[in-house]
């Protein structure tokens, strides 16, 4: 009897906890400022503790990785990998603007963002949970001029965007996150579209049209470069990757381009943040609605003459 009563009382408490959580969820999803500030405050207070703990824990982490991940040459591999990626990115920039490249290489660093201020950041940690593998934390925050939406890059190209900004740290949503939509330009054809990660690949699946005359020669060649477009939320001409295939998912209406990313985001050590505010929403390109859908049983010639509606057509 006493047990039943206790469970009954506890059930009421649980309902109150659920209602509290629902309230917090609602406030957080609506961007309630004080709640975000309070979370940021807790993270800022605990940041020094996590930094010290990270130093203390690093020997254990290294030992673990040494035993189970066989990463004795990890650092050297990272450097070589970064160098290879930079060289590959050079090729994309060559396609984008050879003359600009020659000028920019003199400035070294990040040649494609020469007019914009950047800050180098150390990657503090990778994913903290088991479900947010596409997020990293960097050691720059509000106090360094960072704002949500800024582009994060390496010498090889776009890494992601600044997401949550605290006083001294920020989280970065990586380009490998399928929910991060990027406005891109195909260097070979100068077409623009929207792309996002799909599984292990990056796909441009909005805004591109299949050649009207079916001429496959007008498709972007495999190996040609892909960069951020001027209508994206990030500065233009940041390398994204190379075209690996082009196909039409709907039988010749739209074009879908698969891209190999220039950057490997699996093991980042340093990144640069472009201190130029991003926009909240990518302007969507004009949607192309095919005008060839004709109801069954109706002759298209009865509706259109030389591409124009007939006088007796209702247009609807």
């Amino acid at each position: 009897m006493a047990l039943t009563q206790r469970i009954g009382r506890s059930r009421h408490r649980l309902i109150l906890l659920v209602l509290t959580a629902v309230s917090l969820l609602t406030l957080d999803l609506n961007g309630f400022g004080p709640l975000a500030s309070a979370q940021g405050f807790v993270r800022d207070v605990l940041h020094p503790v996590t930094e010290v703990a990270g130093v203390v824990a690093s020997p254990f982490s290294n030992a673990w990785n040494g035993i189970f991940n066989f990463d004795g040459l990890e650092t050297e591999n990272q450097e070589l990998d970064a160098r290879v990626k930079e060289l590959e990115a050079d090729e994309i920039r060559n396609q984008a603007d050879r003359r600009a490249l020659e000028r920019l290489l003199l400035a070294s660093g990040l040649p494609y963002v020469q007019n914009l201020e950047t800050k180098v950041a150390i990657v503090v940690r990778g994913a903290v949970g088991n479900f947010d593998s596409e997020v990293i934390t960097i050691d720059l925050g509000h106090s360094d001029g960072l704002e949500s939406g800024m582009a994060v890059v390496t010498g090889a190209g776009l890494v992601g965007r600044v997401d949550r900004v605290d006083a001294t740290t920020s989280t970065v949503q990586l380009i490998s996150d399928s929910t991060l939509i990027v406005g891109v330009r195909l260097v070979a054809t100068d077409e623009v579209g929207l792309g996002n990660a799909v599984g292990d690949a990056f796909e441009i699946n909005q805004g591109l049209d299949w050649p009207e005359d079916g001429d496959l020669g007008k498709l972007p060649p495999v190996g040609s470069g892909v960069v951020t477009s001027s209508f994206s939320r990030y500065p233009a001409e940041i390398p994204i990757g190379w075209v690996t295939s082009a196909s039409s998912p709907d039988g010749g209406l739209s074009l879908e381009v698969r891209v190999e990313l220039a950057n490997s985001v699996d093991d980042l050590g340093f990144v640069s943040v472009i201190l130029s505010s991003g926009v909240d929403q990518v302007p969507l390109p004009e949607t192309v609605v095919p005008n060839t859908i004709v109801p069954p049983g109706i002759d298209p010639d009865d509706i259109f003459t030389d591409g124009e509606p007939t006088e007796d057509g209702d247009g609807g």
Partner: protein
Amino acid sequence: MIPLKLAIVSIAAVVIQLTLFVEVRVAGVAPELLAMLGVLLAFYAGIERGPILAFAAGLLWDIYLPTPLGVAAVTFAIVAFSVASLEEGLFHDSRGQLAVIVGLGSVASVVGYALIGEVVGQRGLIDVEMLRVAAIVGLINAALTPLLAPIVRWTLVEGRR
């Protein structure tokens, strides 16, 4: 004294999760210390206090997770309530049983977190990978139970005056 000890243990669990278990993973999966803490608090504190303490632990973890605030908190509270109910009605304290309860509770926490996360708009949480993660988390947390259980038991005991 108990609230202070609970705060220290909870913060320590978060810090360890944010540092050590970012690197130390088994098959790419990290232990879920806060979920484990929630289950153990429910087991030792009972059905009246357990869900509240688990909720608080989840809220602290929520601050670092990409999902909206409250997802882990409500998940841990519901799991804690279930664990405490089972413990009151069925189980008796033994090390083997406790490890099994922690393992199953951790699996339920991971699955519950993914389900509630999807409901509130997070994408890509529910798939076959989630089941693999939940199973491995359950095994690791069960294996870590002998280490964390005495600490949680200590936090819930009032010290000498």
